[in-house]
């Protein structure tokens, strides 16, 4: 277990290092016009050079990269080019919004995905199974921005028009300020992000549980005379969840994209929107900070997921 952990952490650090190099390389290959933009309309070559020098962009590339890594290791991600705000403060501001969005959506999709999948698998070929299969196929084929737009039109605009202003069109209310409004403002974004995933997990859980229920040890469990509910939940579902957890690990990486889209549709100033703004402004310190944070989160989550295997399925030994 310890050896496994050390190996995975080392691998994760290697991946993070590769990503930091890739982000830097990409930006220095590009013809950067940050200094020209900052120097304003009436910029002379001298003032552009002065700005370039102030930002440290005239230093050798390896030196810029080296000082970035050195400072990052001390928890300092530098300043944004345009407003002189520290990158860590931008992240601190945006992170709670993105975390609220992601965690809420993940809870929703795991719960509904696994619950619906179990119903589908236990009552195969019933009306409920068929309805859930059609439901999950439709939402599996629907990109999250389309779900978001449709929700905005029907659940916000149409309902509000008819005098039932249940859902705001977006924005964010901090959890600490008002938990009820926090949930109310996030419910549509949560659904947009979770529906597609819930659909995928329904299908995955269904097929995985169906396969497990055909195993010999399920027959053994049944022949011991324990209740069917216990057979399904304790013996079946436990093993059936392994592929679901694998998929969850992969999806966490893909979630970065989903967050970007949902934050755009519902105007939430989270990390996704901040990175979109930073990209358009070629604001390298902000981009590097957010990309590295995202990659680190995905890496850590994947290690946790691998450790979860061993808990869920005693047949798996980590080595």
């Amino acid at each position, binding site marked *: 277990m310890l050896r496994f952990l050390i190996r995975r952490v080392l*691998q*994760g650090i290697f*991946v993070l290092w*590769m*990503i930091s190099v*890739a*982000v830097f390389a*990409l*930006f220095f*290959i*590009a013809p950067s016009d940050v200094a020209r933009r900052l120097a304003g309309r009436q910029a002379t070559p001298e003032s552009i050079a002065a700005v370039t020098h102030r930002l440290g962009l005239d230093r050798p590339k390896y030196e810029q990269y080296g000082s970035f890594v050195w400072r990052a290791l001390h928890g300092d991600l530098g300043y944004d080019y345009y407003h002189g705000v520290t990158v860590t403060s931008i992240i601190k501001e945006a992170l709670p919004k993105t975390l609220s969005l992601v965690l809420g959506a993940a809870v929703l999709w795991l719960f509904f995905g696994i619950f619906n999948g179990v119903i589908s698998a236990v009552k195969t070929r019933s009306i409920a199974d068929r309805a859930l299969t059609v439901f999950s*196929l*439709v939402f*599996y*084929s*629907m*990109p*999250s*921005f*389309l779900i978001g*737009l*449709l929700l*905005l*039109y029907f659940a916000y*605009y149409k309902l509000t028009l008819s005098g039932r202003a249940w859902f705001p069109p977006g924005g964010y209310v901090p959890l600490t300020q008002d938990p009820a409004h926090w949930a109310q403002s996030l419910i549509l974004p949560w659904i947009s992000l979770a529906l597609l995933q819930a659909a*995928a997990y329904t*299908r*995955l859980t*269904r*097929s*995985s549980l169906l*396969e497990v229920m055909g195993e010999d040890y399920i027959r053994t469990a049944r022949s011991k005379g324990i209740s069917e509910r216990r057979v399904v939940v304790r013996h079946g579902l436990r093993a059936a969840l392994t*592929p679901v957890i694998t*998929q969850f690990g*992969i999806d966490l*990486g*893909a979630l*970065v*994209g989903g967050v*970007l*889209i949902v934050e*755009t*549709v519902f105007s939430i100033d989270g990390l996704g929107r901040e*990175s*979109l703004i930073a*990209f*358009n402004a*070629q604001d390298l310190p902000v*981009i590097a900070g*957010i*990309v590295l944070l*995202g*990659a680190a989160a*995905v*890496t850590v989550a*994947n290690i946790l997921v691998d450790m979860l295997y061993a808990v869920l399925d005693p047949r798996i030994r980590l080595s």
Partner: protein
Amino acid sequence: MSQITGQMEALEPDPIDVVVSKTIEGRSPWQLSMARLRRDPMAIITLVVIFLIILIALCAPLIAKFTGHPPNMQYRTTGLTPEGLPRPPGGEFWFGTDNLGRDVLVRIAYGARISLVVSLVSTVLTVTLGVAVGIAAGYYGGIIDSVLSRMVDFVLSFPFILFVLALVAISGPSLVLLVIVIALFNWTYVARVVRGQTLSLRQREFVEAALSLGASDRRIMFYDLLPNVLAPVIALTSLLIPLFVVLEATLSFLGLGVPAPTATWGGMLSDSVVTYRQAWWFVVFPGAALLITTLAFNLLGDSVRDAFDPRADRL
């Protein structure tokens, strides 16, 4: 029947004859799969729908000619209300107009072209790259194999969208970039499956027989291994196409796909955000086109997978 066969060949980049393995009935796995597919009513229905979508994409210029509205023409007077809002569906504009007074119907037809071209070309690239690397890694093993496995790990943990953002910020959005980026970030799925299959196939007697006859590595990979990994690859391919349709739409929605004013479904939906309160048709019609396409490909993918790879998990 010939239509189905045509479709299947289109899904599969290398039209190499499948080695017929002797079974009691004398039918190859390929023939069995095709027979299973032909018996599946859902496969036939979705194939008809996909055929119609392809037809609409091919006939886009004809639709433009018929309505008299080129895809990027802005009808400021007839296409917009006096307040400058999109016109609802009606006599002149069947599906209404967008916020610049362009014909939504014509733009949906042109958007189908982008959607299909991007998803199909990316799929061919992805599968070719994935199969080539997967077979090589599985067959040679050793260093090639461990390098591949590390690359797969790397790509899987890379925040894809952020990378695309960075690339687009540098070189500007374009169709070619879109296709390359999609292929670059998805070949690893194919490579992993093919590598796994190749690893077990390599131990089989027919590979040993080919080796002892003096066959070259290349011949073994092409004539002995490739036909045997095709079934899972076809099953995987059929699910990559709808995934790429969604990916194209998503990237275009974010302004990272094919640049405006080219009509794309994702781009149209992105424009519709501004006027969704006044113009439901501008959200619903492109959204329906996108949904029907991905749904049809997903359903076909399920049928193809059931036919070619009956034991595979449904995702």
